[in-house]
């Protein structure tokens, strides 16, 4: 008998378990669906969101957003609008799970559209599947600009701002907000972003915008906590030690809530200004921290409950609150816009919902009004990059009790339009 070492035995055992897990990845249970029935549906959309864990709130709010979108489409009563059947899948923020579900949507459920995905790394996997299956992938909540660049394909469209837009707005904001400081000395910046594709891209887009704007800055340090990091204390201590003028953070969802909650008990917000131009201004952070939310943080998000004060946004926020019992985070509006965009693009195609090329062309020319559009502005798709062009609103945390349990919301807004971004990144034909 050949002797087997202890380590080797554990390794083999581990391998067997892995094989079993891979071979039987998930039970083939019925998927949750919204909208039209399987028989009556004109278009099947498979939406992928995390429904559990720290990012779960974004997925759950996105489902409410989809429900609101279907309801909104029905209320329009237009016969040209397609009947949508929306399938829902929980990615658990894992690439392998997301790929398995996405494949099932397109291969077994005949979905011609994939939508959603919060995590950019997961989105890169999903967009490859969509490309190989000639299916549309409508991004509603992930933001890495590499999806419309390196991983671009004809059927990918994103209906929320990406990292390049948000961080360009952030760079413009810094140039204006720290004007007095910059006249005297360079701005020392520390960056803390999640340790995956999205975090790297936010930082790269931000530095590119700062460089193009000629902002004088120094890098005090860069830190990369992993997703769902339970303890940020060492990162916070390191940020305090680096003594930057500004901490730029790109954590999102529950990670950002955990970070700010832990940082409120330290000197961080006293010794440095703090900014998150991506999803730091999500309502969930305000709801979670209540009156413990520090004032004076510089935050943005892809949708705000208190801006713009248009009828459409008010309707969206109040209707969401009526149905869910609480106010929405930004993911809801992304999902709402995604479903609305699919319906509108399909209706503007030749009328044949199977004409995917026609729908693709309609998507490229798409203009639609979304809850986050200020008066006089309409979101529109960039036909070249397939990236929607929207306004970015950056604010400062101020006391605002109108959306309980939050006691603090964003105010002192500075608004940046797509035309502002194009001055930094000129469009090349």
């Amino acid at each position: 008998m050949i002797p087997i070492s202890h380590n080797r035995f554990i390794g083999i055992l581990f391998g067997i378990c892995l094989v079993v897990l891979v071979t039987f990845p998930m039970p083939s249970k019925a998927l949750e669906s919204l909208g039209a029935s399987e028989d009556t549906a004109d278009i099947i959309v498979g939406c992928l969101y995390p429904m559990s864990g720290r990012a779960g709130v974004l997925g759950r709010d996105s489902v409410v957003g989809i429900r609101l979108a279907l309801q909104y489409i029905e209320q329009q009563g237009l016969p040209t609008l397609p009947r949508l059947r929306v399938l829902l899948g929980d990615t658990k923020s894992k690439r392998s799970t997301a790929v398995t579900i996405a494949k099932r949507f397109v291969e077994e459920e005949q979905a011609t559209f994939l939508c959603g995905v919060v995590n950019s790394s997961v989105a890169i996997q999903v967009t490859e599947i969509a490309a190989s299956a000639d299916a549309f992938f409508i991004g509603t909540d992930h933001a890495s600009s590499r999806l419309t660049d390196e991983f671009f394909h004809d059927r990918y469209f994103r209906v929320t701002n990406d990292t390049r837009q948000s961080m360009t707005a952030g760079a413009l904001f810094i140039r204006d907000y720290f004007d007095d400081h910059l006249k005297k000395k360079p701005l020392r910046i520390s960056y803390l972003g999640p340790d995956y594709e999205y975090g790297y891209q936010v930082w790269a887009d931000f530095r590119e915008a700062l460089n193009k704007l000629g902002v004088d800055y120094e890098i005090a340090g860069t830190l990369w906590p992993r997703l769902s990091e339970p303890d940020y204390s060492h990162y916070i201590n390191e940020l305090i030690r680096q003594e930057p003028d500004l901490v730029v953070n790109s954590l999102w969802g529950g990670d950002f809530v955990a970070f700010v909650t832990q940082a409120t008990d330290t000197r961080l917000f006293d010794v440095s200004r703090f900014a998150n131009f991506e999803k730091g201004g999500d309502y969930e952070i305000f709801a979670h921290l209540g009156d413990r939310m520090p004032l004076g943080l510089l935050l943005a998000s892809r949708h705000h409950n208190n801006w713009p004060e248009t009828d459409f946004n008010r309707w969206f926020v109040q209707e969401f609150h009526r149905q869910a019992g609480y106010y929405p985070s930004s993911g809801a509006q992304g999902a709402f816009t995604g479903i609305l965009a699919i319906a509108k693009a399909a209706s503007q195609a030749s009328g044949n919902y199977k004409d995917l090329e026609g729908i693709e062309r309609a998507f490229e020319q798409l203009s639609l009004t979304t809850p986050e559009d200020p008066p006089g502005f309409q979101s529109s798709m960039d036909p070249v990059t397939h990236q929607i062009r929207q306004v970015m609103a950056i604010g400062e945390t101020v006391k605002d009790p109108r959306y309980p349990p939050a006691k603090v919301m964003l105010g002192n807004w500075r608004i940046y339009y797509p035309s502002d971004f194009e001055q930094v990144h000129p469009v090349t034909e």
Partner: protein
Amino acid sequence: MYDTQYVKALEKVTESRTNARLAGAENLLRTFLQERIYELEALADVPEVFDWLTTANAEEKPNAEVMAQLRQALDSPHLYGVVVKPSRYEAPLWYLTQTLLQQVELDELPLTPFANGEIIGPALPTDSRPGWFVLRLSPTGLNPAPEAWVGLVVRLASLTDQVKDLSLTGLQSPLIVTPQNVPITAVGNIPGKPSYSAKDINSNDFIEGWHIRLQWLGDPLLGPLESARFGLILLASGAALAVILLSRHLSKRLEKQVTPLIEGADRVAGGDFDTPLHTEGTAEIGYLAFALERMRLRLRRLVKSMVDVERRAILGQFSAGVAHEIRNPLATIKTTIQALSRKESDPKRQKLMESVDHEIDRVNDVVQLLLDYARPREAKASKVNIIDVVETVKILADAVAHRHGIELVQVEHESVYAWADSSQVRQIVMNLVMNAIQAMEGIGGRVTIRTKQQGLAVYVSVSDNGPGVSADHLIHLTEPFFTTKTNGTGLGLAICRQLAQANQGNLRFQSVSGEGLKVTLKLPLYLNNENQGSV
């Protein structure tokens, strides 16, 4: 010494604990890597993966099953990606976000054996991306260089995270030193200002070329404490020295203040009541010196008073005897002389007898003075117009003054009334005026009498511009039988003082030798008050 021993003991305990913690951390690091090796072995042992690695043609992409296996590995929070190198591939195939491959040359990364695999790297963190390393295995063995291998791209921060519990905020920061001799912090970045201290502690290599360094940060925190500790020791020593010096100083100062008091007390005990005590001193010593000085003055007064009383008693007895034994024979002699004188016709002898009669009167006067001093008459106070008294004296003394060429001057003053015995006041003033005249017999001069009222007293001063009295004599002027005159009895001023005291007054003498003498009688003012005490 105690402090040094205490610090040494503390350092020994700390070192022992630190070594134990370091050993624990080394074990954690090896365990972390071993777990990744297990994951890698599980991946490499999957038949589809093994087959693809060993048989795939160049550029042949992995099939769906292999991809599923590789993708599964990516769900680990500690892994960035997977890298595979089938035997017929020229270069490895990375399943990794391109950002992480920026500024990385795989061939230049260090190679470290671990367990039955190898570690490539780490690719050090940059401003654009975090650090990572590859843990690889080869199904065909690693020596010589493997033709086919599969590797996991491991997050460097996940490895460094294993030592975060070694961190002591403000004191120690754990670093992992890579084979490139670059320190990485527990959060996976390169410290901005790497500093080295003799107090840094290095562990053994937990794998070849990799070790932990406990960076000492305590100087800014403990430096002030250390300074404070030495400061306190110095302060305690200084305080002890200061106490000794202060004790010596206080002892000397006490000695300096107490010694004169002891000497003074000895003098008083020896009967010297006239030398003042040294009354300088602080606090209690000062009070004691003052009390002793008061005691000396009271003793002096008491002794003087007792001597005076005793002297007067002796003088009284003596005077009574003299009066009895001398006056009667003198009266007989006087009567006899007067009888003889009337019958004597010879003028020369008659003149002689008159002289004897005159001398008998003088002896009688002396005896009367003795009796007056020894048995003073009680004063009977009443309202006395001092101006009247002075004018009366001036009228009586003017003739005598004129005879000696002396001008007697009364300075004009409005009426002023004293509460005293008028005859005794007159006697005093007369005595003072006569003394002044006698002081200038033969040389002439001027005697001035002044009266004034000040406060609740009446003052009568008699001053002359004669030879005056020396300071040595001045204090003895009122002592009985002290006189500077050749034919004086030394009782006049003693009686004056006695009378002044009997009238609740006193006498004050002021003189500068060669410039005359001024004697001032002080008497109580008449207050027009029935309750004014009787003398």
